[in-house]
């Protein structure tokens, strides 16, 4: 079936698991122009079609696999999939991004989005092939690791190149921080694995041979030629390729952007040594997560020998390794590599898992854990041996693992005894490995991120404040980062509004955010979309789409009970570090968080008391 919208497959697949039926629907031209795709289109569907207050693990929840107009192999960063749902971890809006060929392959199979509803009567997986679908029994897949599931499915389909998305045992066990794995990469955050597990949908496989009609192919070709040439000489692109994301550990440790020991500090002083060990012993080679990526930030790593022996796999990401080293004071890189490998194989988020383990270690230090929950485990800070044990206990919901599997907010509720004081999260999502005490703008984005304390939409705040990047947004009003003091609080709330609008775009248009860091600006993205679709669209309109989507996600959250009282930062994250390089650095303290938040609300056009988007703002954005 031919698409009515150039640049798009033109169709969405609606999967009704209750009836084991699929239906092909044309996508709405109006919604597509206003929300484009990815986290934007999915926000519109979830807001309009899901009921208020539903249990995220009930059949009523929806999970949407969403591509954007640029989710094509030939586009820089086009191997990018958004998975959107109401989170069982936070009970609010959730989006989780993953790289790989799955997203361009959905397009080739003839769909822009796959909307999954209901619950299958038995464990199944879905096979999508050139707009044809087939449900297949998945009973034999239960209990297998994620890589075992992928191999089994590819064997059954007779195609080892078929893209497969699946959950691990943790998703089957409804672990609230369970991930969805795609070819060794993780859509880790907010518990999408549990949502699929609750639906008895164990995996989705996709292949296709269809093509997308391009409105102005010569124009697109010229833009892409220039973009790829520019990427070859861009230092950020080279940095990602040369070092991967883990390459930032030494600098972030030194710069006070490395949360340590459950956020007691923002530096440790061991980052450089840990990185050197990894480079000498664990690193094998760089790799691309999707075909055609010129950056190739992925790292193939292993542990060759010893008690943490681990096969070659894609891993050692900055966030994952930080959460299994600095967070828990672990100095054994082999143990960290092994633990994050286990997380991916069992299907749990490395960030949330490292975070809840750090929380458990602090509980253990304070004597707050019950003997019946921990048996004779030594959960002391820095005990490397206990890390993989706890990962398995969480994935399998055993003992203390069953408490931690609910996330740090629920675990603190259950354990009590003052543990809420050091349960580090915002809106229920555990914090990632960047620290707003050394770049204050990040504090605003952590507090206001629509999925909670996430590492994607706040990341650019730190990259602007401390990293001095601007992504071409100065022409739209972003202050010159070289004239901004990272310790200042004034002006940060206003800047964050524009940073969020601009840097949420990759997750709407279907590209990898790292290409924005590597010199592809909002204006470049707009040129690509214009040539693909034939639309008259520019950077300014794209920024308004970003603003519209952030406001719609906010309205979704307000509908689910979020208020201004939830836009907070944990006290520890605002306080002077207890040890490390910055323990005497008073400028780390966040003095007037409320002032920064008020500035942000005003920049957004939200009610200063309630944080609700004003009727005028909703009208301006076409949300009424």
């Amino acid at each position, binding site marked *: 079936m031919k698409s009515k919208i150039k640049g798009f497959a033109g169709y969405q697949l609606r999967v009704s698991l209750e009836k084991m039926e699929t239906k092909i629907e044309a996508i709405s031209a109006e919604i597509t122009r206003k929300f484009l795709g990815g986290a934007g289109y999915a926000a519109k569907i979830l807001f309009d079609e899901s009921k208020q207050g539903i249990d995220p693990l009930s059949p009523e929840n929806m999970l949407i696999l969403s591509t954007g107009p640029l989710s094509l192999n030939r586009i820089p960063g086009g191997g990018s999939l958004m998975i959107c749902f109401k989170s069982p971890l936070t009970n609010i809006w959730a989006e989780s991004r993953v790289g790989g060929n799955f997203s361009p392959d959905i397009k080739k199979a003839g769909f822009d989005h796959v909307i999954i509803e209901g619950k299958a009567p038995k464990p199944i997986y879905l096979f999508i092939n050139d707009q044809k679908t087939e449900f297949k029994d998945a009973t034999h897949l239960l209990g297998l690791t994620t890589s075992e599931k992928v191999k089994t499915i590819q064997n059954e389909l007779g195609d080892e190149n078929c893209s497969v998305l699946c959950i691990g045992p943790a998703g089957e066990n409804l672990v609230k921080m369970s991930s969805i794995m795609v070819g060794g990469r993780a859509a880790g955050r907010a518990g999408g694995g549990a949502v699929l597990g609750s639906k008895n949908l164990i995996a989705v496989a996709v292949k296709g041979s269809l093509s997308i009609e391009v409105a102005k192919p010569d124009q697109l070709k010229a833009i892409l030629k220039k973009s790829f040439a520019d990427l*070859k000489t861009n*230092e950020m692109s*080279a*940095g990602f390729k040369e070092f991967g994301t883990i390459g*930032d550990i*030494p600098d972030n440790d*030194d710069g006070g952007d490395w949360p340590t020991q459950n956020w007691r500090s923002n530096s440790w002083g061991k980052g450089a040594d840990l990185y050197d060990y990894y480079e000498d012993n664990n690193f094998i080679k760089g790799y691309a997560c999707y075909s055609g990526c010129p950056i190739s930030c992925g790292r193939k790593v292993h542990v060759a020998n010893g008690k943490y022996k681990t096969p070659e796999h894609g891993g050692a990401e900055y966030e994952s390794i930080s959460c299994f080293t600095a967070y828990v004071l672990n100095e054994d890189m082999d143990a960290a590599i092994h633990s994050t490998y286990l997380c991916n194989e069992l299907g749990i988020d490395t960030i949330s898992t490292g975070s809840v383990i750090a929380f458990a270690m602090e509980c253990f230090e304070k004597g707050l854990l019950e003997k019946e929950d921990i048996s004779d485990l030594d959960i002391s800070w820095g005990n490397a041996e206990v890390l993989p044990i706890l990962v398995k206990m969480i994935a399998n919901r055993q003992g203390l693992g069953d408490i931690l599997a609910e996330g740090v907010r629920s675990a603190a509720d259950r354990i009590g005894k003052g543990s809420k004081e050091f349960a580090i999260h915002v809106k229920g999502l555990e914090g990632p490995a960047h620290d707003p005490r050394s770049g204050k703008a990040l504090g605003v984005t952590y507090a206001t991120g629509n999925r909670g304390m996430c590492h994607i939409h706040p990341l650019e705040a730190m990259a602007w404040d401390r990293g001095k*990047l601007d992504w071409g947004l100065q022409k739209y009003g972003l202050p010159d980062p070289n004239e901004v003091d990272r310790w200042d609080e004034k002006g940060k709330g206003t800047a964050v509004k524009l940073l969020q609008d601009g840097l949420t775009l990759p997750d709407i248009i279907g590209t990898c955010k790292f290409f924005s*860091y590597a010199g592809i600006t909002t204006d470049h993205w707009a040129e690509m979309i214009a040539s693909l679709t034939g639309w008259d669209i520019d950077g300014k309109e794209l920024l308004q789409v970003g603003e519209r989507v952030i406001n719609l996600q906010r309205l979704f959250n307000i509908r689910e009970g979020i208020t201004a009282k939830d836009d907070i930062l944990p006290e520890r994250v605002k306080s002077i570090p207890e040890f490390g390089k910055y323990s005497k650095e008073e400028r780390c303290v966040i003095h007037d968080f409320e002032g920064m938040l008020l500035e942000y609300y005003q920049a957004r056009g939200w009610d200063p008391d309630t944080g609700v988007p004003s009727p005028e703002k909703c009208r301006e954005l076409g949300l009424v």
Partner: protein
Amino acid sequence: MVKITLESIGKLSSYFGNENINIDLDDEASIMDLLSVIDDRWGAILPGFMWNSKKQKFRGPIIIAVNNEIVRDLKTRLKNNDKVQIIKAFVGG
């Protein structure tokens, strides 16, 4: 003798003392030879997050470019009047 200019900007230049520094190297010197000179002259003062004295190389995420072309092979030979740029990238995920 090969005369090159070592260029660094912003915070990095504060460690070298100047944004542009002229350095004389032996004929047919490579980037590795330049790194050895860097270690001799600045190794003791460059901070650990950016300089690995044991390996005489920059730690991530610092990129080396020669005349605005990013260079990965440290055996790359340097020519007279080459500008060697030391650039700090941002790669955290």
